[in-house]
Protein backbone atom coordinates (compact mmCIF):
# COMPACT_ATOMS: atom_id res chain seq x y z
CA UNK A 1 0.00 0.00 0.00
CA UNK A 2 1.16 3.50 -0.76
CA UNK A 3 0.67 6.02 2.07
CA UNK A 4 1.00 9.78 1.48
CA UNK A 5 1.29 12.46 4.13
CA UNK A 6 0.62 16.17 3.73
CA UNK A 7 1.21 19.47 5.55
CA UNK A 8 2.15 19.15 9.23
CA UNK A 9 1.43 15.42 9.28
CA UNK A 10 4.18 15.07 6.68
CA UNK A 11 6.55 17.18 8.79
CA UNK A 12 5.88 15.29 12.03
CA UNK A 13 6.19 11.90 10.37
CA UNK A 14 9.26 12.98 8.43
CA UNK A 15 8.38 11.66 4.98
CA UNK A 16 5.86 12.51 2.27
CA UNK A 17 5.24 8.95 1.08
CA UNK A 18 6.04 5.34 1.85
CA UNK A 19 5.21 1.90 0.54
CA UNK A 20 4.09 -0.47 3.26
CA UNK A 21 2.95 -4.08 3.50
CA UNK A 22 -0.15 -4.21 5.66
CA UNK A 23 0.04 -6.63 8.58
CA UNK A 24 -2.57 -9.38 8.70
CA UNK A 25 -5.83 -8.20 10.18
CA UNK A 26 -5.54 -4.59 9.03
CA UNK A 27 -8.26 -4.00 6.45
CA UNK A 28 -9.75 -0.56 6.94
CA UNK A 29 -8.74 3.06 7.43
CA UNK A 30 -9.09 2.95 11.23
CA UNK A 31 -6.89 -0.14 11.29
CA UNK A 32 -4.19 1.53 9.21
CA UNK A 33 -4.13 4.59 11.46
CA UNK A 34 -3.99 2.45 14.62
CA UNK A 35 -1.15 0.44 13.14
CA UNK A 36 0.82 3.53 12.10
CA UNK A 37 0.23 5.15 15.50
CA UNK A 38 1.71 2.04 17.09
CA UNK A 39 5.04 2.86 15.43
CA UNK A 40 5.35 5.67 17.98
CA UNK A 41 7.50 8.78 17.59
CA UNK A 42 6.37 11.18 14.88
CA UNK A 43 3.60 8.79 13.83
CA UNK A 44 2.02 8.79 17.30
CA UNK A 45 2.38 12.56 17.48
CA UNK A 46 0.95 13.24 14.01
CA UNK A 47 -1.93 10.78 14.36
CA UNK A 48 -2.72 11.39 18.02
CA UNK A 49 -6.09 13.06 17.43
CA UNK A 50 -8.60 11.18 15.26
CA UNK A 51 -10.78 14.31 15.09
CA UNK A 52 -8.04 16.16 13.21
CA UNK A 53 -6.79 13.54 10.76
CA UNK A 54 -8.48 13.50 7.35
CA UNK A 55 -8.19 10.46 5.10
CA UNK A 56 -8.46 9.86 1.37
CA UNK A 57 -8.41 6.43 -0.24
CA UNK A 58 -7.50 6.45 -3.93
CA UNK A 59 -7.92 10.24 -3.96
CA UNK A 60 -11.47 10.30 -2.57
CA UNK A 61 -12.44 11.22 1.01
CA UNK A 62 -12.83 8.18 3.21
CA UNK A 63 -14.03 7.32 6.72
CA UNK A 64 -12.71 5.00 9.42
CA UNK A 65 -14.69 2.05 8.05
CA UNK A 66 -13.52 2.41 4.44
CA UNK A 67 -11.87 -0.87 3.42
CA UNK A 68 -8.27 -0.73 2.19
CA UNK A 69 -5.85 -3.21 0.69
CA UNK A 70 -2.31 -3.44 -0.62
CA UNK A 71 -3.20 -1.93 -4.01
CA UNK A 72 -4.70 1.24 -2.54
CA UNK A 73 -3.28 4.74 -2.17
CA UNK A 74 -4.08 6.15 1.25
CA UNK A 75 -3.45 9.80 2.11
CA UNK A 76 -3.46 11.27 5.61
CA UNK A 77 -3.65 15.03 6.15
CA UNK A 78 -5.01 17.79 8.41
CA UNK A 79 -8.20 19.74 7.61
CA UNK A 80 -7.75 21.57 4.31
CA UNK A 81 -7.16 25.34 4.10
CA UNK A 82 -7.28 26.25 0.42
CA UNK A 83 -9.25 28.94 -1.33
Amino acid at each position, binding site marked *: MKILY*FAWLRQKIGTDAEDVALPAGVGDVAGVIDWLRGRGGGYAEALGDDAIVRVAVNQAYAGPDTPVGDDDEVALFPPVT*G*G
Partner: protein
Amino acid sequence: MIRVQADDFDIGAEIRALTAANTGVGGVASFVGLVRDMAGGAGESAMTLEHYPGMTERMLAEIDEEAHRRWPLEASLIVHRHGRLEPGERIVLVVTASAHRRAALESCAFLIDWLKTRAPFWKLEETPEGARWVEARASDDAAASKWRREDATG
Protein backbone atom coordinates in the same frame (compact mmCIF):
# COMPACT_ATOMS: atom_id res chain seq x y z
CA MET B 1 -13.44 23.55 -16.29
CA ILE B 2 -10.73 23.43 -13.64
CA ARG B 3 -6.99 24.14 -13.54
CA VAL B 4 -4.33 23.81 -10.86
CA GLN B 5 -1.16 25.74 -11.57
CA ALA B 6 1.80 27.58 -10.05
CA ASP B 7 1.51 30.49 -12.48
CA ASP B 8 -0.61 33.60 -12.05
CA PHE B 9 -3.73 34.11 -14.16
CA ASP B 10 -5.25 37.09 -15.99
CA ILE B 11 -8.81 37.58 -14.73
CA GLY B 12 -10.02 39.47 -17.81
CA ALA B 13 -8.51 37.01 -20.24
CA GLU B 14 -9.98 34.04 -18.35
CA ILE B 15 -13.49 35.52 -18.34
CA ARG B 16 -13.28 36.49 -22.01
CA ALA B 17 -12.10 33.02 -22.99
CA LEU B 18 -14.82 31.33 -20.92
CA THR B 19 -17.69 33.30 -22.43
CA ALA B 20 -16.37 33.82 -25.96
CA ALA B 21 -18.79 32.76 -28.68
CA ASN B 22 -21.53 31.90 -26.17
CA THR B 23 -24.29 34.47 -26.60
CA GLY B 24 -26.51 32.43 -24.27
CA VAL B 25 -24.60 33.95 -21.36
CA GLY B 26 -26.42 36.85 -19.76
CA GLY B 27 -24.42 37.17 -16.57
CA VAL B 28 -20.97 36.30 -15.28
CA ALA B 29 -20.01 36.13 -11.60
CA SER B 30 -16.46 35.86 -10.37
CA PHE B 31 -14.57 35.46 -7.12
CA VAL B 32 -10.85 36.17 -6.77
CA GLY B 33 -9.02 35.11 -3.62
CA LEU B 34 -5.87 37.05 -2.70
CA VAL B 35 -3.06 36.42 -0.21
CA ARG B 36 -3.91 38.63 2.75
CA ASP B 37 -1.07 40.25 4.71
CA MET B 38 -1.56 38.40 7.99
CA ALA B 39 1.35 40.18 9.65
CA GLY B 40 -0.55 43.47 9.42
CA GLY B 41 2.27 45.10 7.51
CA ALA B 42 4.75 44.18 10.24
CA GLY B 43 6.87 42.15 7.87
CA GLU B 44 6.87 39.44 5.27
CA SER B 45 3.86 37.17 5.37
CA ALA B 46 4.16 35.17 2.20
CA MET B 47 2.64 31.71 2.18
CA THR B 48 3.24 28.41 0.46
CA LEU B 49 0.29 26.39 -0.76
CA GLU B 50 0.83 22.66 -0.67
CA HIS B 51 -1.63 20.36 -2.42
CA TYR B 52 -2.30 16.73 -3.28
CA PRO B 53 -1.69 16.42 -7.03
CA GLY B 54 -4.32 14.19 -8.58
CA MET B 55 -6.85 14.44 -5.77
CA THR B 56 -6.92 18.22 -6.06
CA GLU B 57 -7.94 18.08 -9.71
CA ARG B 58 -10.43 15.31 -8.98
CA MET B 59 -12.10 17.20 -6.12
CA LEU B 60 -12.28 20.47 -8.05
CA ALA B 61 -13.83 18.65 -11.02
CA GLU B 62 -16.40 17.01 -8.71
CA ILE B 63 -17.31 20.36 -7.14
CA ASP B 64 -17.57 21.93 -10.59
CA GLU B 65 -19.87 19.14 -11.79
CA GLU B 66 -22.03 19.57 -8.70
CA ALA B 67 -22.50 23.28 -9.48
CA HIS B 68 -23.65 22.36 -12.99
CA ARG B 69 -26.15 19.89 -11.54
CA ARG B 70 -27.60 22.49 -9.19
CA TRP B 71 -27.71 25.57 -11.44
CA PRO B 72 -28.33 26.12 -15.17
CA LEU B 73 -24.78 27.19 -16.01
CA GLU B 74 -23.48 27.93 -19.48
CA ALA B 75 -19.85 27.74 -18.33
CA SER B 76 -17.69 27.70 -15.23
CA LEU B 77 -14.03 27.89 -14.34
CA ILE B 78 -11.96 27.23 -11.23
CA VAL B 79 -8.25 28.13 -11.28
CA HIS B 80 -6.30 27.42 -8.09
CA ARG B 81 -2.61 28.20 -7.64
CA HIS B 82 -0.03 26.36 -5.54
CA GLY B 83 3.51 27.13 -4.44
CA ARG B 84 4.88 30.26 -2.74
CA LEU B 85 2.74 33.40 -2.98
CA GLU B 86 3.36 36.93 -1.68
CA PRO B 87 0.72 39.15 -0.03
CA GLY B 88 -1.54 40.66 -2.69
CA GLU B 89 -1.02 37.80 -5.13
CA ARG B 90 -4.01 35.98 -6.58
CA ILE B 91 -4.61 32.46 -5.17
CA VAL B 92 -7.89 31.32 -6.66
CA LEU B 93 -10.36 32.32 -9.36
CA VAL B 94 -13.95 31.11 -9.65
CA VAL B 95 -16.04 32.20 -12.64
CA THR B 96 -19.60 31.15 -13.39
CA ALA B 97 -21.68 32.14 -16.41
CA SER B 98 -25.40 31.67 -16.86
CA ALA B 99 -28.34 33.13 -18.73
CA HIS B 100 -29.37 34.90 -15.53
CA ARG B 101 -27.55 36.57 -12.67
CA ARG B 102 -28.96 34.56 -9.77
CA ALA B 103 -27.61 31.23 -11.01
CA ALA B 104 -24.23 32.82 -11.69
CA LEU B 105 -23.98 34.56 -8.30
CA GLU B 106 -25.24 31.63 -6.23
CA SER B 107 -23.13 29.00 -7.95
CA CYS B 108 -20.02 31.18 -7.64
CA ALA B 109 -20.57 31.44 -3.86
CA PHE B 110 -21.23 27.69 -3.67
CA LEU B 111 -18.02 26.85 -5.52
CA ILE B 112 -15.73 28.94 -3.32
CA ASP B 113 -17.42 27.77 -0.11
CA TRP B 114 -17.16 24.15 -1.13
CA LEU B 115 -13.64 24.20 -2.46
CA LYS B 116 -12.40 25.79 0.78
CA THR B 117 -13.56 22.75 2.74
CA ARG B 118 -13.07 19.99 0.14
CA ALA B 119 -10.06 20.73 -2.08
CA PRO B 120 -6.84 19.31 -0.58
CA PHE B 121 -4.74 22.46 -0.18
CA TRP B 122 -2.81 23.54 2.91
CA LYS B 123 -1.40 27.00 3.61
CA LEU B 124 1.96 27.41 5.31
CA GLU B 125 2.39 31.02 6.43
CA GLU B 126 5.72 32.74 6.94
CA THR B 127 5.50 34.79 10.12
CA PRO B 128 8.15 36.75 12.05
CA GLU B 129 8.04 33.86 14.57
CA GLY B 130 8.60 31.25 11.88
CA ALA B 131 6.52 29.12 9.53
CA ARG B 132 3.02 28.24 10.71
CA TRP B 133 0.35 26.00 9.19
CA VAL B 134 -2.94 27.85 8.82
CA GLU B 135 -5.69 26.13 10.81
CA ALA B 136 -9.03 25.31 9.24
CA ARG B 137 -11.79 27.60 10.44
CA ALA B 138 -15.14 26.46 11.76
CA SER B 139 -16.73 29.39 9.89
CA ASP B 140 -15.57 27.86 6.59
CA ASP B 141 -17.26 24.55 7.49
CA ALA B 142 -20.40 26.46 8.43
CA ALA B 143 -20.37 28.35 5.11
CA ALA B 144 -20.06 25.10 3.18
CA SER B 145 -22.65 23.23 5.23
CA LYS B 146 -25.18 25.99 4.56
CA TRP B 147 -25.37 24.70 0.99
CA ARG B 148 -25.95 21.20 2.29
CA ARG B 149 -28.89 22.31 4.45
CA GLU B 150 -30.49 24.29 1.66
CA ASP B 151 -30.12 21.29 -0.56
CA ALA B 152 -31.69 18.98 2.02
CA THR B 153 -34.67 21.21 2.70
CA GLY B 154 -35.20 22.56 -0.77
